[in-house]
């Protein structure tokens, strides 16, 4: 009974032995994924081969490749023993696909790394200039790609300046050529850079997965379009560029604006402006013409009315004054006639005599009696007489 120990003592003893074993701290274990579950960003994997299995934990899977069930993988990490539960777990830091998938896996890791750095962030991406005057194409002069690009651009736009920077796009040192090409393109101060390559096997596209090339694309001063391979191909430069084009032709489409459409648009806009101006001008002209006409009409009416009124008053006044003159002339004529009719000289001249008695005019025979002394006036002189007889006409 000398060797009785507690569970805690036993587990601590085991942990000490394991911790002391250098070999167990850094292991690359190869096996198949028997089961995998991701909980709170940690991957719990049961790694197995045909005879054995072990529990593995990978903390923070965003930093590593995530395998699927059945994948043959390599996990790099170390063993850890837990005193509390008495269990042993393989703590993995890095997971890789074993065998054929390693190239893609490498790219995936690089992608994750650069992504974590923010190199592929959407907010870093700039808009491709809609009306580029000058573009640069970094690609190989041999092959169909450059012909496709030039033909596509020229179909849309006869004036855009195309600078071609001949670059090797394949081979071990192609990465340096591409970087040099991008440097030149940036120095040219063009509006848009196209980095292009035709389709090919994954191995052929390697320079476009090269970390140095991808970083150079991300650091371009000029908005850059990456067009590598065909629709289904993806390269890391596609993620780093401001725009990914599915094909070189698509890149050309994106870089060049349609010159003919633009000219047509401008022409139609000018025509519209011209039309609008004309319409506005004519509208205003019509308005002012009507306004002027109404003023003329009103003024004319006003003048006509007043002229007529003045004429009426003038005619009326003339009529009145003429009437007055005529009336007065008439009155004067009558008075003059009367005056002349009663002119005593006229009467006497006509042979009539005027008789006065006692210094008073006698106008009737009745005033005079027999024996009265009377004075008889004639034109030539005066007679003094005594009345001898008075004879009255019989009353009628």
């Amino acid at each position, binding site marked *: 009974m000398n060797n009785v120990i507690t569970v805690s003592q036993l587990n601590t003893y085991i942990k000490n032995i394991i911790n002391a074993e250098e070999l167990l701290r850094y292991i690359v274990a190869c096996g198949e994924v028997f089961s995998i579950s991701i909980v709170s960003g940690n991957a719990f994997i049961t790694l197995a081969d045909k005879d054995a299995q072990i529990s593995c934990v990978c903390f923070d899977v965003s930093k590593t490749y995530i395998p699927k069930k059945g994948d043959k993988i390599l996990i790099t990490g170390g063993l850890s023993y837990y005193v509390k539960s008495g269990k042993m777990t393989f703590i993995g830091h890095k997971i890789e696909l074993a065998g054929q998938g390693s190239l893609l896996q490498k790219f995936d890791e690089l992608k994750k790394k650069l992504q974590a750095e923010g190199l592929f962030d959407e907010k870093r991406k700039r808009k491709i200039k809609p009306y580029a005057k000058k573009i640069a194409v970094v690609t190989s002069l041999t092959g169909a790609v450059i012909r496709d690009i030039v033909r596509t651009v020229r179909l849309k736009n006869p004036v855009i300046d195309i600078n071609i920077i001949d670059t090797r796009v394949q081979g071990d040192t192609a990465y340096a050529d591409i970087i040099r090409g991008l440097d030149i393109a940036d120095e040219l101060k063009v509006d848009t850079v196209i980095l292009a390559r035709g389709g090919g096997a994954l191995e052929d596209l390697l320079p476009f997965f090269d970390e140095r090339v991808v970083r150079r694309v991300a650091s371009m001063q000029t908005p850059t379009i990456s067009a590598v391979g065909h629709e289904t191909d993806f390269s890391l430069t596609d993620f780093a560029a401001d725009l990914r084009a599915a094909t070189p032709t698509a890149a050309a489409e994106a870089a060049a604006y349609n010159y003919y459409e633009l000219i047509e648009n401008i022409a139609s806009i000018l025509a519209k402006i011209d039309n609008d101006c004309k319409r506005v001008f004519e509208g205003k002209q019509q308005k002012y013409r009507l306004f002027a006409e109404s003023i003329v009409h009103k003024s004319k009416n006003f003048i006509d009315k007043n002229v007529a009124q003045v004429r009426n008053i003038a005619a009326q006044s003339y009529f009145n004054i003429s009437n007055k003159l005529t009336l007065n002339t008439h009155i*004067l004529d009558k008075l003059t006639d009367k*005056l002349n009719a009663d002119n005593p000289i006229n009467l006497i001249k006509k042979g009539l005599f005027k008789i006065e008695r006692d210094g008073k005019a006698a106008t009737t025979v009745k005033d005079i009696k027999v024996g009265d002394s009377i004075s008889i006036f004639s034109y030539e002189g005066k007679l003094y007489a005594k009345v001898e007889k008075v004879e009255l006409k019989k009353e009628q």
Partner: protein
Amino acid sequence: MKFEEALNALQSVANELESADTTLDKSLELYQKGVELAKLCMDELNEAKGKIAVIKKEMDKITEIDAPEDLK
């Protein structure tokens, strides 16, 4: 003397002259006065006539102006 005054005076003179009981001397005197008044009145009327004629001519000239046919 104003025209109306002269005309009134002429009227009274004519009336007085018409009445029968006026002596010849008085009649002659009235007649002479009447003629003078008539002349005065006639002169006034003639002057007025002349003035009216002048003014009428001036007025005709003024009212001859027509409203403009077209101000456009």
